[in-house]
């Protein structure tokens, strides 16, 4: 039979099944000199020896020779023949060495085929079957080595490959069948020894074997599409493996298959992918995402379920920002699907009650990213209409996907901003080129301008009034201080008087335009803040305390009134509102009006003429007596914790100069009731931005609410990096009386800070900017 093999093939040399005596084959070893031949001869004769250790060592020696010699030469054939003979040895170390040697020989044969361009498919199939027959060995190392050897195989026929996946013997006329017919195999190999080696391999007791089997499954995928598809089923099962190392190897294999394009995911595989997306292990999740970023999903349904999986993953692990990049690349890979998503999203946005709040949800962010990826997808030639509303919403998120965009970021940005109709981006870029450092969004600029204009006007109007008022106030303060001498120490009074004196000087020296905050102002402001805090930041006040706090508020306002001397309509309204509230509290008689509030009330009821109050405020102050409260009950202080996960000066958030940046905050509020109005105040340099927090988005009870939300900061400066100072403030209700500028988009009422200011570090992704 050897002769027929030799004669039928013009290849230079062939494997000789053991025991055959054919020597007709031309052994092309002329090039390699006598060295290896002597070695091979000696080692082969040793390999036939009596002692197992010597046999094993001889095989290892042969392996060393094979590695050394070139692909041509008869030495490889000799070694191969010797290894095949010892493949079924009783000693496992010999089997191990034999399998390893066959693997090496197979590599050499494959290399030779590549050089000569003449394939010998049957020989490769034969070696594949021989290695397969050892993949069910009882010894773990032999199994591992067998799988490692199989991974190196080249040009294996499809029939043999398919048989290796299925435990059931496939009876076909192709592939292994042809080998059986050709009758070239020793009888043991006619038995379909490749059957189901992978099915067994992935269930092996030893995870090392499972890992090897998994690698091999992936490595062989390049030879046959049908095989790759069936191998995927097995790999999917392996994702449920109880050893983490195997799960990771599986994902690695899938990733490799996806990279080379042999991975075609079907619907039945989706749930397994989705399960790994929410795996408890971050590395597994990361690997699963990477694969998803590469695969091609044939159906919209699958695409959507992949998105849902990623969104769930994002919700569970909001710190894993690379999900956004993956979302972008998935979207890019499936242009028309993304366009579909974009369409639905646009509808959702337009029907949403408040367009701004929508950004808080991870789902919306994720869908936005997917939507904007559509135009850069490969399906570009198709007309993909992405509604412009999408772009305007997506811009704050750009920083996160900048890594996915890579160098093309500017180009991508230009496409993003054109359809969005947002003016600032282009300007921003232009000014960036010009190198000017002043860089604000037009919107913000416009706002700031308006603000300045308005302030100026108002200042002008109130100038005179203020100066007059201040002067008067000084005098009054002096008077007041006189009145206070009864209760306060002389030292304090002296201080107040001195302050007054300095202030008068100040007013004289500078003109009214430059009125700085006086110490009295500061004191008043401080008092105001404290009283406000008492009023707003504590829940569970009993009726008595509430009345007292309100009285304090009243007192503070009266102080302020006494400071300015004039009674604006606003002030009066405010006072009225407080008195009404007091009234309301005491209406049922559970509390008594104090003398002080009674007097104030009566005075107000009687003396308001045309919105001005003509009364000596000092009188009120005189009769105010603070009753020390005895019973405080259960006081709950409202407080808040504001965090930005994973952000510090070492790990800044990425942003693109001039474009809004979304910052995701973790907020937890304690003792905030549902009708409180909470704002988040962000300021950087001179720009202050307020964002309202919708408490309904928070999870939790009245005691502790928490939420993680993304808030865009619009006015990013054109700088390499900047620090955003953020804090949470609570609005103090004062009826419908407006004390602040509503146009600014901030809180209407005065506010109290709920937490310390938090620094958020941001760094530009724009390299140009850095230069």
């Amino acid at each position: 039979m050897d002769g027929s093999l030799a004669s039928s093939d013009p290849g230079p040399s062939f494997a000789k099944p053991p025991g055959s005596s054919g020597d007709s084959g031309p052994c092309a070893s002329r090039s390699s000199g006598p060295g290896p031949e002597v070695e091979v001869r000696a080692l082969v004769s040793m390999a036939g020896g009596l002692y197992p250790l010597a046999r094993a060592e001889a095989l290892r020696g042969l392996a060393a020779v094979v590695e050394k010699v070139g692909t041509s030469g008869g030495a490889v054939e000799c070694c191969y023949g010797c290894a095949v003979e010892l493949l079924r040895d009783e000693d496992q170390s010999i089997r191990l060495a034999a399998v390893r040697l066959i693997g090496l020989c197979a590599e050499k044969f494959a290399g030779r085929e590549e050089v000569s361009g003449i394939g010998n498919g049957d020989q490769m199939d034969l070696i594949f079957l021989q290695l397969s027959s050892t993949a069910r060995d009882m010894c773990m190392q032999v199994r591992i080595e067998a799988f490692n050897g199989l991974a190196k195989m080249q040009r294996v026929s499809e029939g043999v490959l398919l048989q290796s996946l299925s435990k059931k013997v496939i009876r076909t006329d192709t592939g292994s069948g042809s080998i059986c017919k050709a009758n070239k195999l020793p009888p043991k190999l006619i038995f379909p020894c490749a059957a189901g080696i992978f099915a067994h391999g992935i269930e092996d007791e030893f995870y090392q074997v499972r890992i090897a089997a998994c690698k091999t499954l992936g490595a062989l995928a390049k030879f046959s599409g049908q095989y790759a598809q069936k191998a995927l089923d097995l790999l999917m099962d392996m994702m449920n493996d109880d050893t983490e190392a195997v799960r990771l190897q599986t994902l690695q294999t899938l990733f490799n298959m996806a990279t080379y394009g042999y991975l075609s995911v079907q619907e039945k595989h989706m749930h397994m992918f989705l399960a790994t997306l929410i795996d408890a292990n971050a590395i597994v999740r990361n690997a699963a995402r990477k694969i998803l970023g590469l695969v091609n999903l044939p159906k919209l349904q699958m695409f959507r379920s992949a998105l849902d999986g990623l969104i769930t993953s994002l919700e569970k692990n909001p710190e894993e920002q690379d999900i956004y990049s993956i979302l972008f690349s998935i979207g890019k890979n499936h242009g028309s699907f993304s366009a579909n998503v974009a369409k639905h999203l646009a509808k959702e946005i337009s029907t949403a009650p408040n367009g701004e709040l929508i950004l808080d949800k991870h789902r919306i962010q994720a869908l936005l990213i997917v939507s904007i990826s559509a135009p850069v997808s490969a399906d570009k030639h198709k007309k993909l209409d992405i509604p412009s509303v999408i772009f305007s919403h997506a811009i704050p998120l750009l920083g996160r996907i900048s890594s996915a965009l890579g160098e093309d970021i500017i180009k991508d940005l230009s496409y993003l901003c054109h359809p969005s109709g947002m003016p600032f981006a282009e300007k921003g870029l232009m000014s960036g080129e010009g190198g000017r450092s002043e860089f604000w969004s037009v919107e913000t600029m416009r706002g700031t301008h308006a603000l300045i204009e308005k302030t100026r006007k108002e200042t002008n109007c109130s100038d005179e009034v203020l100066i007059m008022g201040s002067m008067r106030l000084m005098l009054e303060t002096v008077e007041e201080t006189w009145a206070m001498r009864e209760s306060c120490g002389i030292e304090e009074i002296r201080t107040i008087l001195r302050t007054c004196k300095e202030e008068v000087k100040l007013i004289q020296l500078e003109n009214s335009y430059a009125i700085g905050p006086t110490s009295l102002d500061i004191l008043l402001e401080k008092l105001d803040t404290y009283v406000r805090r008492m009023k707003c930041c504590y829940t569970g006040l009993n009726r008595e305390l509430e009345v007292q706090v309100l009285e304090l508020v009243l007192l503070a306002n009266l102080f302020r009134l006494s400071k300015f001397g004039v009674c604006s309509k606003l002030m009066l309204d405010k006072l009225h509102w407080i008195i009404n509230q007091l009234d309301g509290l005491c209406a049922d008689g559970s509390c008594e009006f104090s003398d002080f509030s009674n007097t104030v009330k009566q005075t107000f009821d009687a003396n308001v003429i045309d919105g001005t109050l003509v009364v000596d405020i000092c009188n009120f102050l005189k009769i105010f007596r603070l009753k020390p409260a005895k019973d405080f009950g259960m006081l709950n202080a409202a407080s808040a914790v504001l965090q930005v996960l994973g952000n510090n000066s070492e790990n800044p958030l990425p942003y693109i100069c001039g474009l809004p940046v979304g910052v995701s905050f973790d907020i937890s509020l304690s003792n905030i009731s549902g009708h409180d109005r909470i704002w988040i105040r962000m300021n950087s340099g001179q720009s202050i931005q307020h964002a309202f927090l919708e408490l309904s988005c928070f999870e939790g009870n009245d005691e502790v609410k928490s939420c993680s939300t993304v808030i865009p900061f619009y006015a990013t400066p054109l700088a390499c990096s900047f620090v955003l100072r953020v804090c949470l403030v609570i609005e103090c209700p004062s009826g419908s009386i407006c004390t602040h500028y509503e146009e600014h988009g901030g809180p209407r009422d005065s506010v109290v800070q709920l937490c310390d200011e938090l620094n958020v570090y941001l760094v530009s992704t724009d390299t140009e900017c850095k230069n």
Partner: protein
Amino acid sequence: MAIECLVLGAGQEVGKSCVVVTIGGKRIMFDCGMHMGYHDCNRYPDFARILAAAPETTDFTSAISCVIITHFHLDHIGALPYFTEVCGYHGPIYMTYPTKALAPLMLEDYRKVMVDQRGEEEQYSYEDILRCMKKVIPVDLKQTIQVNRDLVIRAYYAGHVLGAAMVYAKVGDAAMVYTGDYNMTPDRHLGAAQIERLKLDLLITESTYAKTIRDSKHAREREFLKAVHKCVSEGGKVLIPTFALGRAQELCILLDDYWERMNLKIPIYFSAGLTIQANMYYKMLIGWTSQKIKDSYTVQNPFDFKHVCHFERSFINDPGPCVLFATPGMISGGFSLEVFKRWATSDKNLVTLPGYCVAGTIGHKLMSGKPTRIDIDKDTHVDVRCQIHQLSFSPHTDSKGIMDLTEFLSPNHVILVHGEKPQMAFLKDRIESELGMSCYYPANNETVSIPTTQNMKISATEKFITNCAALQARDSLQKSDLISSIHLSGVNEDERLAEGILLMEKSKAPKILCEDEFLKLLGTDRHSVQFEPLLPSRIEEAEAAIVDDLTSE
């Protein structure tokens, strides 16, 4: 010499495994099981036949060299107390450590069921079991035991259940392996069977799944977990009726692992009794479990289930989802029946059944079709609305595994036991055609005789050895010529032949000698006969053949 193999049980059936093998005059009994399907004398193997086959003796102790029990299942050990205490066998009994530890549990449990519930006559008492277990000699895996002067036995890991073993026995040159029940694919808590490549005359293998090729266990596990997860996430309760040993631990590891990965907080309960005790044994016998468990137990013993809590009877009516393991496995009574009666009425709940249920049990009724009403006895019935999931985790190897093992061991003969006749016939054909081994599947009480190879020690004379050495030296000289002509093809075909004469004389050791020596021994001269070769041939044919040869070259 031959191996006589008398099949007393599990011949063309499953149950009462018992094979008595005689090798070189040594008689070994492999397994001593009882048949669960019979309640008469057919329950036990017909031990009398052993004595019939051994005419030289009248008692079991002298007839049998040793009894070897492969694992603790009743169909492999159930008749042992009867055989030792009632039939009066007092020889050595071998079993692995876990089998010795767990066997009394199984035997006593069954004895109680038999006597207390069915009211049958007691075949052996609890004291009998204890006395019987005292005679047992525990063995470890791969420990070679010299039973007597000739007989050597060795146990190998078989998977299947904790402590299951395959047994290698050797008398002189004749060697055999009895597999017992084994599993070639590992499961969560047990490894796959593991054995060395041995030179065997006979392999006696189980063949429960002689024809079935099972697909990967992953799919079944996935289905099971999906069903359970779906049920509990919708607020239902899951009842898993199991036997205390093996399957309960397997499923529990699976669920515990899944709970950990999915971060589920729903309680998993183990009903009291045997299972708790069994878990304790599993924890102690870590060395006999799978590699994964062996690797991880130093950090955390996998049988210390994180999510498993103890079940109180009062929990039955508690609201909210849970998973409960309860014995017995086929809902034939006891606690699992009690729970089933309560839980089966809600369509939110789930009952998972084992792959095989004995006819007549509730498990069997549930498996056959989807009944809506099950009568438990004359007065009580249960409206079955719950979901039913069937789960076939079998610890037996499939057809592929049997073939793999047989191919790996490459014995000269194979005997199939512990299977059903038609399937065994199918497997026999496969083994004979694909592996080229002779194969038998005797019925109960049949005997198969198998010839064995026999090696002979032969001494050689000094001259013969010198002659051989000289011949070899000449060979290698020729070879060196080949090397100089750079020809490697002959390397693999080193067949060193030496000629000699084998001399076997009465009462003398056989020896091999040279021609010359032989002549000297006989005291005669050499005669030589010469032949003249005369070959009838037709020239035309020969020519044609030569031409053919040339063209093919």
